[in-house]
């Protein structure tokens, strides 16, 4: 095992050692062989593609799953956790993507939930608030312990979760995709907090898809692939390309395939669009062009897409395709006019999770293979088979429920749905969020292909390298308006975008 780079020789003492872990689920080997360790004051990142076994490994550590074979040692003592509570009591705090806070309670009440501060058998609110304020102060939080959790932002809730871990004297902090829902400045604040905690000896395990952040934050990185830990190295021993190659298990040439289509005429035009937080947005997009939409969280990117698509009611504005005014007041109108939107949250807004993959695919397209309400099932099956083959969607069978698919396949399934509508304008909102490197690459190729077919492609993304890599032109939004434009994305920089965005 490579020792952590930062630790001085005398206090190199593993906080946690997981060795030869194996775990299988009925029919599938989830983890064939995993070895992982964590040192005091270390930030150790765990990376890998979807299905590589990261979450399973973490869930074994936190007592959610039980391992079939292997050993876990905590402070050099063997332990075994049968339930999540066991792991918590041993000082392992886990912060999942979905928070476990009670929205209706105050920050202080949440921090001490289950370990309430009492005096004479009654709750001691004053002392609880004081202790909570102290913890929050250490974490650089600027909100009151009295605040109701439902009034907090996602980033603030995360801080409350961390405060809760501290209140329980956790020695190990496990964070699953902590930055997925954060704006850039919130991410840097979180990282500041984590660095501070690790300076006090907290060991942090940190799962992320965002390789830039992993490279910036971690002391060491462990790569998992196909249910096994492939390598563990200090962060300085990895290059970004190395890391990706280790994750996918083969050399890659290029992370972002650039659009090679030559943009044609102006196909799509938005004139003084307003509604919700969006004020007076105008822009044009040419056929064959990939137009990016950048901006901070809450800048109104998603809102613009939803207004165009008719998902939200627009206050004013015109939308034109090839010079023709489109009359869109509902998603139904938009689809009929040849505009479609791949929403940012595929589970909440895209998929009917319990329904089969085929039914999900068919949802927006039933009219094209039904007559007087009668579904022509053979034609449906044929269209579905064609699309799944061309998009390389992996299914056990066409009736497999959407909820059983991996994130990448779910996303492709939604793309298949929208491609089948033969739309001319395709809005992608965070098309690669939460999907693995291979599926991301497929998505980039697809976006390029659509542009090459002369479609209007608009991509919203929080990952600036991605936007710079695949777009021809990028509009930057700030507070509901267009703040500026990067005319040639291939020459643009992240700094340029950020300067416009904040």
């Amino acid at each position: 095992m490579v020792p952590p780079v930062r630790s001085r020789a005398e206090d190199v003492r593993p906080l946690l050692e997981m060795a030869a872990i194996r775990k299988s689920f009925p029919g599938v080997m989830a983890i064939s062989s995993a070895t992982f360790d964590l040192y005091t004051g270390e930030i150790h990142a765990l990376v890998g593609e979807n299905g590589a076994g990261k979450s399973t490994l973490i869930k074994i550590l936190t007592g959610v799953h039980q391992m079939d074979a292997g050993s876990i040692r905590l402070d050099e003592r063997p332990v075994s956790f049968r339930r999540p509570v066991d792991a918590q009591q041993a000082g392992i705090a886990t912060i999942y993507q979905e928070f476990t806070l009670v929205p209706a309670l105050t920050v202080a009440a949440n921090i001490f939930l289950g370990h309430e501060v009492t005096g004479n058998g009654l709750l001691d609110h004053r002392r609880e608030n004081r202790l909570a304020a102290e913890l929050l102060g250490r974490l650089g939080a600027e909100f009151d312990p009295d605040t109701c959790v439902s009034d907090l932002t996602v980033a603030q809730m995360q801080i409350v979760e961390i405060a809760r871990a501290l209140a329980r004297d956790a020695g190990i902090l496990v964070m699953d995709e902590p930055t997925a829902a954060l704006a850039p400045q919130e991410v840097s604040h979180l990282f500041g907090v984590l660095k501070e905690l690790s300076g006090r000896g907290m060991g942090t395990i940190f799962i992320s898809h965002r390789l830039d952040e992993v490279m910036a934050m971690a002391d060491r990185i462990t790569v998992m692939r196909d249910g096994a830990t492939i390598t563990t190295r200090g962060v300085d021993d990895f290059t970004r390309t190395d890391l990706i190659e280790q994750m996918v298990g083969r050399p890659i040439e290029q992370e972002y395939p650039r659009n090679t289509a030559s943009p044609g005429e102006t196909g799509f035009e938005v004139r003084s669009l307003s509604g919700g937080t969006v004020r007076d947005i105008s822009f044009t997009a040419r056929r064959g062009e990939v137009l990016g939409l950048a901006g901070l969280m809450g800048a109104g990117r998603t809102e613009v897409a939803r207004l165009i698509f008719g998902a939200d009611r627009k206050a004013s504005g015109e939308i034109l395709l090839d010079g023709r005014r489109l009359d869109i007041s509902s998603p139904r109108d938009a689809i009929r006019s040849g505009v479609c939107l791949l929403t940012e949250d595929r589970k909440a807004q895209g998929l009917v999770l319990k329904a089969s993959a085929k039914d999900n695919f068919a949802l927006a397209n039933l009219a094209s293979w039904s007559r007087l309400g009668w579904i022509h099932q053979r034609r449906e099956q044929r269209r579905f088979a064609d699309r799944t083959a061309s998009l390389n969607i992996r299914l056990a069978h066409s009736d497999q429920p959407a909820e059983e698919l991996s994130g990448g396949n779910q996303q492709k399934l939604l793309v298949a749905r929208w491609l089948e509508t033969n739309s001319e304008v395709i809005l992608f909102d965070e098309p690669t969020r939460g999907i693995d490197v291979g599926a991301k690459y497929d998505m980039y190729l697809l976006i390029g292909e659509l542009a090459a077919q002369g479609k209007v492609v608009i991509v919203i993304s929080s990952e600036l390298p991605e936007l710079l890599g695949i777009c021809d032109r990028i509009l930057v939004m700030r507070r509901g308006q267009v703040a500026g434009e990067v005319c040639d994305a291939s020459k643009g920089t992240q700094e340029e975008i950020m300067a416009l965005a904040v």
Partner: protein
Amino acid sequence: MHSDVKPPVAQTPSRSRGGGGSRRFFTDYGMVIVLAGLCLLFSVLTLSEQHPVGAAAAEDIADNIAKIVPGGSTVLIMAQNSDEDAEFVRKLSENIGGANMILLPPATGAPAVMRGRLAELDSRSRTFQYIITTNNHSATIRLILSQFPAFSDVKVIVPQSYKWPTFLLPDNIRNVANQITVIAIIAIGMTMVIITAGIDLSVGSMIALSAVVVAWLVGQFGGAQASTITMLLAALGGILVCGGVGAFSGLMVTGFRIPPFIATLAMMQVAAGLAYIFSEGKPIYQLPDSFVLLGRGTEPFLHIPNAVILMLVLYAIAHVVMTRTTFGRYVYAVGGNLEAARLSGIRVKAILFSVYTICGMLAGLGGVIMASQLKSGAATYGLTYELYVIAAVVVGGTSLMGGEGRILGTLIGAFIIAVIQNGMNLVNVESYTQKVVLGLVILGAVLVDRIKQTRMNRKASWRGDKAAA
């Protein structure tokens, strides 16, 4: 897209659905097994001596009489005046008429009439050797016979009895089917509503409203002399009124976002009140005899009740609608994920509005059937029926969370409830205990659903791990 850039790992976890067909059948229609088990249970519990009556009894005797009765004997057939006794006498006279024996004119009627007939024969010193009757009259006849010393040698012949479960008698099965029709028909609409993650509490009141409206309309336009057309229009009226009530609930749910539970709870009161207002609190009786054709009539071959045939036809249509049409697909989609359905261009409000309207119309039809069964309309009909309807849907495997459920599952659910009630009646379980058992059955069905769901979720959450990892 390039398949060569896909990581090999994504190929491995294509978990097979193990054995496909049969296993899916059990998870989808596992309740069929429960129903079969219940039928078996009640068959065993109600196994008893069955005494043939009517035509069956006549045939049994006709088949065996040559072995029992020597040639040239004189035979008297005795029975009472019920339909099946008349059938017995007629069939028997026909079948043994040609045999080598003398047949006296049959003696049919109440015990007093039977005795009078024997007295008359006695006074004329007319002798005979055999009386043929059915098992349920043999004791009475022997008693009467003992009062005539002249006939002390006369033997009483009855058809052979046999062991058979009372539960499985054709009459009882028809009875079970007939009892469940109203609930089962309304449960079609309820299944659709529940699949959209809604509920309709007003169906019980709508039964009463429809029954009253139908009876009132028939009363207004002809009463006991009303024509068939009038009755059909009146039935349509009842169905449309309830469709209107359902549509109103649908409007409240879609247009004003009132939770379905509240909207239909209110409409439950409104419909019940309207039923009382229409009927002025009194049952309406003046209906033509032919009005009972729907509720009590049967088809001529297997004597399946007309209402049961209507129910089966409606289930067949509903099954096809829910599995083969865009409407059905949209109902599932709206219940599974309303927002995703809306963003896919589905008119979710129109779908929701339709299912409440359909449910109302079917409740109206249920009311028409009940009025026909009882040959009257009263505001007290259908009380607490909404609970049985919802129970049938839930027992049939439809999830109250929406997005899942099957029409044919509901039919099975309705039958499970009917079989339990009927079976408990047959084995003399008192009605209070029946309520307890029925409640536990509903709880059990939901529990099974929960366990199934938890298991599915565990699988899905493991999938989810992979997606999030």
